[in-house]
């Protein structure tokens, strides 16, 4: 327990931890404030006006379509004018009232049900970036400054020391993410209440938000652990940052090579997409190379559905390899 206490104190006393955490809180607060300011709750008069405007727009569109139809009917077959219209004038586009939703004519309003998932993913992205940096510097600076060697003189149990550091970091990160996540959800619930719409919020929707939040927590913890493990492997914070650049280069290379070699769905090899799929549960990838045609001769896209389970397994393998390598290196490499 003494090592846990020491590592917790060490993490809290690190200036970068505070700076990054404050930075994340400020960015989140700015986003919430911006959303609050740029949205407003629709009052009944605005709704009535919007409905009127929608009806007016529909009528204008319907009138324009009627004029077009008359021009089509009037055009002599074979004339230059007739070439602008389909053979059957009944095929001309005819607007329908359902295509003119009144909500389009309302002032910008925050729809909790539709827009909060994007806010969850934004929160996850910001927290994951901070987790990567804090995790990397927490152990990287220790190695680089020699403080890790000093610590090992006091606790010559390498795996216990690194494991405790990682455990303390992830525990702290989980606590911070849950607290900030709760505040984030509360803030947008209030924004929806005062500057938007909380309609259609069933218990199932809340459950879906909760599960997406849990997956976000998993993403943040995994990214933090990878940053920590990479910095420990390289015994320097720079290793984790360099690995990010390397990963970007490799990803671009893989994507380009996959395209050249005719491999279908090259996006499936892009790690950021795994994160996206993990959060949004599924993504349908399409291949428009048109190897197969429909009976009518149209191009039919082949599809591949990536699920959050696939993304989860792939990410878990990467996580296990990187953290495992860091532990193995900690166990066998000399400390010079």
């Amino acid at each position: 327990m003494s090592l846990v206490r020491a590592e917790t104190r060490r993490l809290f006393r690190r200036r970068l931890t505070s700076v990054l955490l404050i930075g994340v809180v400020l960015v989140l607060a700015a986003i919430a404030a911006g959303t609050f300011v740029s949205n407003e709750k629709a009052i009944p008069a605005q709704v009535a006006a919007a409905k009127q405007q929608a009806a007016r727009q529909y009528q204008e569109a319907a009138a324009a379509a009627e004029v077009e139809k008359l021009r089509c009917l009037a055009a002599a077959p074979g004339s230059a004018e007739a070439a602008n219209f389909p053979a059957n004038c009944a095929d001309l586009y005819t607007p329908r009232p359902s295509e003119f939703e009144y909500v389009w004519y309302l002032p910008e309003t925050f729809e909790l049900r539709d827009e909060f998932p994007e806010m969850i993913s934004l929160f996850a992205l910001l927290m994951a970036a901070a987790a990567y940096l804090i995790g990397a510097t927490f152990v990287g600076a220790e190695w680089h400054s020699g403080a890790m060697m000093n610590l090992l003189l006091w606790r010559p149990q390498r795996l216990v020391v690194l494991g405790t550091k990682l455990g303390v970091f992830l525990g702290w990160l989980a606590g911070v993410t849950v607290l900030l996540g709760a505040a984030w959800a509360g803030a947008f619930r209030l924004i929806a209440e005062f500057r938007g719409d909380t309609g259609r919020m069933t218990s199932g929707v809340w459950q879906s938000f909760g599960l997406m939040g849990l997956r976000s927590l998993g993403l943040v913890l995994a990214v933090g652990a990878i940053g920590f493990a990479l910095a420990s492997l390289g015994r320097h914070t720079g290793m984790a940052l360099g690995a990010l650049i390397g990963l970007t280069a490799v990803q671009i290379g893989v994507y380009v090579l996959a395209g050249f070699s005719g491999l279908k769905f090259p996006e499936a090899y892009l790690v950021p997409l795994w994160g996206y799929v993990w959060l949004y549960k599924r993504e349908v990838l399409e291949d428009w190379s048109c190897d197969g045609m429909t009976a009518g001769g149209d191009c039919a896209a082949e599809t591949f559905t990536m699920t959050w389970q696939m993304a989860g397994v792939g990410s878990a393998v990467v996580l296990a390899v990187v953290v495992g390598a860091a532990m193995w290196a900690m166990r066998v490499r000399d400390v010079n």
Partner: protein
Amino acid sequence: MTPVLEISGLRKTYRSRKGARNALDGFDMVVEAGQVHGFLGPNGSGKTTTLRTLLGLIRPDGGRMALLGREVPWHLPEVAGRVGAIVESPQFFGRFTAETTLSLLADAGGVDRARVPAVLDLVGLRDRAKEKVKTYSLGMKQRLAVASALLKEPTLLILDEPANGLDPGGIREMRTLMRDLSASGMTVLLSSHILAEIQLICDSVTIISAGRRITAGSVAEVLAQHTSGAVRVRLEPDTDQEEAARILREAGAQVTVETAGQLTVRDVTGPAQITRLLAQREIYLCELTPIAADLEDVFLELTGTTPVEGHHRQVDENALAVGQNGWGR
């Protein structure tokens, strides 16, 4: 006496693209309880590798080590709480204060934080305890390193170059501290290049070169083994120096003519023989001084690192190194 530190046949080979280098080549060392033991060796001889291996930072390739009667590295966690150590240059996280640094180590090692002010006071950092370590000079960091080693109230204290960066006053304070610690029953293993300090402080020494022990024992024994028995002879003014040298050489002595009126004489049965031989030829002395070897002489002789004019010695050049140390396939 009970040994608190035993090393036998310790081996460590560093491998790189350039080949393999034996940093430790069957090294042996014993440190008895309650002693201040000096650990000497030229640069690159294996001192720091030995200490790092002993403290579990480097994995040995062979040999046996024991600290406080327990085999290490297997039982190192059991004895680590009783072994205080600093290895090479002091290294701390620069953004923490000295007080925070030590209190974090105290927490990690299960030591009462209340000891922190006491050890900071002991090494003279009490008034600078709340300053960040990155603002410290090398000497101050060295003091902090010693404080961190003392924090555990260790039975065995291992200090690698503790006088690095210290001012003359600091060196003297460190010397006094070592003596006080030893007097309190603590065993101290001291690695240093300041041989005069070692000679003053230490009860016993081990000298390492090219990864092997080349001598060990009490300081007096080591000096006695390597004292040449030479004497410095100063003659009366206007005495024929060459004549005196000839007389002594005829009696079997090795004589070196030094500055005017001064000779260095070896291989004589005793100073009395010199006075007798010269007095018989009416040559009289005004000074006869035994030349005692000091630790530096012994060190340079044993390690083969005596500077030679016009030759730039390389770090792997020493008495045992030829064909055995350095990089090789």
